[in-house]
């Protein structure tokens, strides 16, 4: 084979007397180019998954990812998904045999061995929950690592450089803190886990960085928490205030007309009050999520490249409602469309400032996993 005419970009062949070429810094544009064909792919995948009793779904998932990934263009060149259905299948089989089957047996036997109220059953349940939370953390990390290592742009793949077990430990600890803090640990856990993940992330050998603390997220979070508490207190108060408790809990000398009136009030509160709680707390939650998305992008850099994400409350509401509708009306079959909408949302709204010497980025040296995402699949961690 002839000698490669192109040197390695990072170490240009130096010729005596000639200065090395200056770094060719480039700006980075990320765009989503819509492609047809997802509907056909979705239908074929669904039918084949039925015919093959679910086995095809791993290959189908891979086809969907190839389709969606190739719609993402960075500096006019598409992203490429190089994973295979076989890797996903293998991952699912390994996790199924090593973890799910023993866990299922443990739970079935535990439910038979001890009555629900016994302390041992409770302890077993708590231990299983802790273990599962730990596994969910590991699974999240491993799934991200797998996808990054199968995401290729200009022949260079991504990676996640840290240890899944360490991430799992951090994940478990931070989520456990939600209980004693009544949820107030949430921004801290989100920022902590995102920092961990982003700082481990590489494109080729070039690292991403996350600089940020949970502080700025506490104002939007307090809005959600307090707003939610207030709305629940108001509607709950209306309920307790307008309902005669004697009537509800077994007074014998009740006036039937009075009872009927009470029944109507309760019905009205359930039909109007509960939806109000859901809508308002959902809205507050979106306000927080939009702030979080923007903040995470602001905190993320890649060399001199700075990210920005234009996540607005209204756009996030339409995105979420649309996705819920798709899942409801297609009974989940339309999931690929939900995935595409999510990715398109981020990709289309992601912008970068600054420049980076793309040509100098070297290929990742991390070894490729031979199977992928079994854990994430098992615990249904996310839809991709």
């Amino acid at each position, binding site marked *: *084979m*002839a*000698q*490669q*005419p*192109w040197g*390695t*970009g*990072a170490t240009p062949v130096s010729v005596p007397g000639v200065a090395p070429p200056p770094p060719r810094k480039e700006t980075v544009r990320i765009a989503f180019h819509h492609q047809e064909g997802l509907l056909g792919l979705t239908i074929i995948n669904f039918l*084949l998954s039925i*015919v*093959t*009793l*679910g*086995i*095809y779904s791993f*290959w189908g998932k891979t086809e969907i990812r*190839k389709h969606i990934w*190739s719609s993402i263009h960075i500096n006019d*060149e*598409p992203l*490429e998904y190089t994973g295979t259905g076989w890797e996903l299948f293998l991952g699912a089989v390994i996790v*199924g045999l090593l973890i*799910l*089957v023993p866990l*299922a*047996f443990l*739970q*079935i*036997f*535990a*439910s*038979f*061995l*001890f009555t629900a109220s016994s302390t041992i059953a409770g302890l077993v349940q708590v231990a299983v929950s802790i273990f599962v939370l730990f596994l969910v953390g590991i699974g999240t990390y491993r799934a991200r690592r797998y996808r990054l290592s199968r995401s*290729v*742009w*200009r*022949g*260079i*793949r991504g990676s996640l450089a840290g240890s899944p077990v360490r991430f799992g430990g951090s994940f478990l600890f931070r989520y456990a803190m939600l209980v004693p803090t009544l949820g107030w640990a949430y921004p801290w856990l989100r920022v902590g886990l995102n920092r961990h993940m982003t700082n481990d992330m590489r*494109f*080729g050998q070039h690292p991403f960085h996350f600089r940020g603390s949970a502080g700025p997220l506490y104002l939007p979070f307090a809005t959600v928490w307090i707003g939610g508490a207030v709305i629940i207190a108001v509607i709950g108060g209306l309920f307790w205030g307008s309902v005669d408790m004697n009537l509800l809990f077994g007074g014998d000398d009740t006036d039937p007309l009075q009872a009927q009136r009470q029944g109507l009030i309760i019905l009205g509160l359930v039909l109007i009050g509960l939806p109000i709680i859901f809508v308002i707390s959902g809205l507050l939650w979106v306000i927080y999520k939009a702030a979080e998305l923007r903040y995470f992008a602001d905190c993320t850099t890649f060399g001199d490249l700075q990210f920005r994400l234009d996540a607005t409350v209204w756009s996030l509401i339409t995105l979420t409602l649309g996705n819920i509708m798709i899942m409801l009306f297609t009974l989940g079959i339309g999931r690929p469309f939900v995935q595409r909408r999510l990715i398109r949302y981020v990709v289309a709204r992601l912008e970068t400032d600054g420049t980076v010497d*793309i*040509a*100098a*980025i*070297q*290929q990742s040296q991390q070894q490729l996993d031979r199977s992928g995402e079994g854990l994430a699949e098992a615990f*249904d961690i996310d839809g991709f």
Partner: protein
Amino acid sequence: MASDPTDAHIGYFNDGQTAASHEVEVRFGSGGLVFGPPGNSAETHWSYEGLEPVRPVPQSGPSRLRYQGAPEARLIIASPKFAREVVQRAPQVGTRAGHKTTAKIAAFCVAGVAAFAVASWLVLSAAPATVAAMVPQSWWGFMGEKIEASLVKTAKRCDAAEGKKALARMAFRFSDEIEANSVRVYNMPLVNAFAMAGGRVVLTSGLINAAQSADEVAGVLAHELGHVKAHHPEEQLVRVFGLQLIMSALWGGSGMADALAQSGALLAVLRYTRSAEREADAIAVELMEKAKIDPQGLADFFRTLKKTYGGEAGSETNQVTNLLRTHPGLDERIGQIRKREPGPTTPALSDEDWQHLKAICSGT
């Protein structure tokens, strides 16, 4: 033919080592694509057989190719026209890979069916006996207790003292290892009997009332003890667990333990195959012969059932048809029992004990 500069097409090359994008001139060489930097003599050769598409070559826009010998490198062909000419020489990079896909799909279907068949065979036939033997007896005891509780629901246990003694005497005739407390009568109109994991046997008051003699009850008891002896309840539990595991693996469901508590699963837990019923009958006859009780008692009970309720198709709520459905092929089974040659026998219970047993529910 001399090299014509119009032969060369512009492309881009990623070498798989860095993210640099190199402009290259691509030509058709002998047996493969040849490309290199413009105006440079150094060239790379990719054979047609080794070419792979990143995505099948599109009708318009650039095409992206990989090469088996350098899986991380990428060659981007800018011109769709040139890309189509590449497809002519290396058909595998084109969109049409029809027969390969069909073969793949067929393979998937076969694999799916085969996997299902193997899993079913494992779960239904191969594994139950082995797994059932691995689980400690005390666990089965706990499970049997829970199954009994969900079976009888709110029905009261019949515990007239003399009746219980009579029942225990009957059970001890089959084996002195039986724990008297593990055979119980519940006040239920249903005409049925059940064997459960851990050696428990439940008879209904409906069954005792329907029986014409103590021998008939003894026949049914022996039959249930036959199930116990052959470990049918334990094996059936393993089968149901296994099926639920397969189902949840296929459809990603959860709450397996909850599902078992439902009556549908309960029915599955307590239902046996015809061959299991035949095996229990055979063991019952053996037990009865050994206990010097006339094995015809079991056959008589079947006849009583037939005479009283006939073969009529009852409604879903008809408890007798339930029994017939879970114990299929009565005539055949009666025939099996009749063929045996009984030795000298004594009644299963004395007349007095039989009266006590019939009155076992009188206190409830």
